[in-house]
């Protein structure tokens, strides 16, 4: 046996190491305690957060501040669950393609991804994602009393469900509202429109291209989430129904009236370029003071109130979508939700659920919103309770008059699950409709011809 003979060097080494450890221990202890305090609120849930420890999840998200905030909290999740998170940021236009490729090929690359609600029908029809009710009801995986699933905005939850079954949990969402220049409206004694008719009248009253002010702007660029973001609302407000007698119909009389309204208001009162605008372009134009009103996602409020860009801060007001001739207001119910990729091992599916539960919990929502240390504050938190939290409400009302009220009223009363035809064929249908609308907007086809053509193209898709 080799005897241990301390030399001067080993003595020094051990001594220094011990001294360093003792010196650092308060810091280490503090850190451990801080982490415990950080995680205490999660640990109060009656589930074993560590049950899938050792797994690594890849999560695809889009580059957006509300996901950036979540990414910075990944170390907390790791400390809580022992699960590693790898985030991959994919541009919004490509995330659908890339995730559909992953899902079709059953490679299980992404445990979950920021999913478009319109894709759930396709996902569910092919069993690419898991129905989530079993996870929600499993007591070993979810503490219902802690998670309070019902607190998540009902409209977004139903958007992420197919035939009453839940397939994704909303993380961040939007609703469509009117954003208007309060100062310009006040100067002319106008009120935000309550009906589509009044909307046109307001736009006409304010439209003054010679002074570089246009009456309104709506998304015009062709695309399933672009002109097909605005048009479905108008269609439904005019009393349109996608599935008339069980058959997808896009060329009825309500459709004609709706598209004619859209084309008319865009031609007369929107900047000519708006036919090719997406919502960041609209928000940019509004923030430069050239547009008096637009109808779009409530989240654009943060852009038109960005002090680095905007010239209209303090002059912005908000209102709900105007009512249509049918007496209804119909807005989109967009959100990014997280589904569970079905092509994974059971343990990894559990890990994915723990991630979804963590990310969509009230606690994480608050930590990524008003309690987030960074500069960007989310305006799309998924929890009704947070929308009532005075701290959050105060922050959101910084965007201008009536912001929280308009948003909440729209979320509670103006959304409609069947806002767009919820069928697995949606991606192709959405693109076909978008092209038809564009040809009407650009004057290449009459409203009727455009819709008839779309109907002709869509019919075989529904058969196949």
């Amino acid at each position, binding site marked *: 046996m080799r005897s241990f003979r301390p030399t001067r060097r080993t003595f020094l080494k051990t001594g220094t190491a011990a001294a360093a450890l003792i010196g650092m221990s308060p810091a280490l202890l503090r850190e451990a305690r801080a982490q415990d305090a950080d995680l205490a609120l999660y640990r109060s849930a009656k589930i074993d957060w560590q049950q899938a420890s050792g797994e690594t999840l890849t999560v695809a998200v*889009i*580059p*957006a*501040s509300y996901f950036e905030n979540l990414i910075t909290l990944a170390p907390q999740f790791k400390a809580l669950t022992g699960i590693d998170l*790898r*985030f*991959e*940021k*994919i*541009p*919004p236009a*490509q995330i659908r*393609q*890339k995730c559909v*490729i992953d899902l*079709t*090929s059953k*490679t299980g*690359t992404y445990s979950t991804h920021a999913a478009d609600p319109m894709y759930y029908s396709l996902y569910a029809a092919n069993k690419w994602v898991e129905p989530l009710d079993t996870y929600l009801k499993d007591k070993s995986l979810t503490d219902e009393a802690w998670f309070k699933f019902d607190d998540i905005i009902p409209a977004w939850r139903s958007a992420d469900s197919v035939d009453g079954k839940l397939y994704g949990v909303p993380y961040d969402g939007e609703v469509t509202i009117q954003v208007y220049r309060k100062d310009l409206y006040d100067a002319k004694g106008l009120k935000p429109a309550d009906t589509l008719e009044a909307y046109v009248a307001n736009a006409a009253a304010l439209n003054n291209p010679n002074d*570089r002010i246009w009456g309104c702007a709506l998304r015009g660029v062709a695309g399933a989430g672009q002109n097909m973001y605005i048009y479905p609302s108008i269609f439904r407000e005019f009393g349109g129904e996608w599935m008339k007698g069980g058959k997808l119909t896009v060329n009825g009389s309500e459709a004609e009236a709706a598209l004619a309204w859209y084309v008319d208001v865009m031609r007369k009162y929107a900047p000519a370029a708006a036919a090719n605008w997406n919502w*960041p*372009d609209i*928000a*940019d*134009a509004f*923030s*430069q003071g*050239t547009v008096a009103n637009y109808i779009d996602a409530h*989240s*654009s409020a*943060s*852009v038109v109130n*960005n002090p*680095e*860009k905007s010239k209209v801060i303090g002059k912005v007001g908000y209102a709900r979508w105007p009512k249509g001739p049918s007496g209804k207001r119909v807005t989109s119910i967009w959100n990014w939700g997280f589904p569970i990729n079905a092509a994974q091992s059971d343990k990894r599916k559990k890990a994915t659920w723990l991630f979804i539960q963590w990310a969509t919990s009230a606690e994480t929502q608050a930590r990524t919103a008003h309690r987030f240390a960074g500069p960007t504050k989310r305006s799309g938190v998924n929890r009704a309770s947070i929308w009532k939290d005075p701290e959050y409400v105060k922050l959101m009302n910084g965007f201008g008059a009536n912001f929280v009220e308009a948003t909440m009223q729209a979320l509670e009363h103006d959304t409609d699950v069947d806002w767009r035809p919820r069928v697995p064929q949606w991606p192709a249908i959405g693109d076909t409709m978008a092209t038809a609308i564009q040809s009407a907007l650009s004057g290449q086809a009459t409203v009727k011809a455009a819709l008839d053509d779309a109907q002709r193209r869509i019919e075989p898709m529904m058969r196949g």
Partner: protein
Amino acid sequence: MSANRIRFFALLAISLVFLLAWAFPVVWSMLNSLKTDRDALAYPPKLIFSPTLEAYRDVLFGSGSILPNLISSMVISVGTTIVTMLMAVPAAYALARLRFRGKKFAGFYVLATQMLPPVGIIIPYFLVLRNIGWIDTYQGIILIYLSFSLPFAIWLLVSYFEDIPFEMEEAAYLDGASRLRTLWRIIIPQVRGGIAVTIVFVFLNAWNEFLFAVVLSGNTVRPVTVAMFNFVSVEQTLWAKLAAVSVLAMLPVVVLGVVAQKHIVKGLTVGAVKGGGRR
């Protein structure tokens, strides 16, 4: 004014219009890259503004630095170019000079791969790479890029090889040189221009590719074309930063273009003066 002068000024005016149309996007990006986000958005556009390098500082050294992405792009493009050229030069020589069975078919087949729409083959590519564990790796992306750069390079090079008079090769054989030695010593120096042109195009195609890159890359290997899109979010477009990245992404291509220019001019004209032929 004489008729000649009128013609001169008319031509000058037309040239200026073309120059403007050609230079506009580049100049516009450069100007925007020197603005703040507020100035970049201003309408009517600001031509006079106080320039700032803030956008460059942000995209190079900020939290979402695109330096790793520029490196990714460089490794992919240089890698693709080297491997492509190593394979394309002998292949093009063979197609231009050798006689073998199925040569016509081989020539056509190489071209046929170019006729497939990229979107149609992306899923099989994804699956193959995924199964061999090459998603999000340099070798994976370079391998896929070869599938379109190689046929393109071969077809471009074949025409240059065909333009070299066969007598030159014969003279070398008579002097006792082997086929490889002839290729290396006699032929390649003759098609230097063509090779330079091909290198530039292969590099450019790899540098600018987006569709395959966005699907086959991940967090480790992420070329600048994909990273650039992070400045266009669902929330807003960061115009100044986007412009700064575009300018940075243009730089290597411009440098390559300038370096290769001499050869390119030679390469483009070589066919006109020499007559050769396919064997």
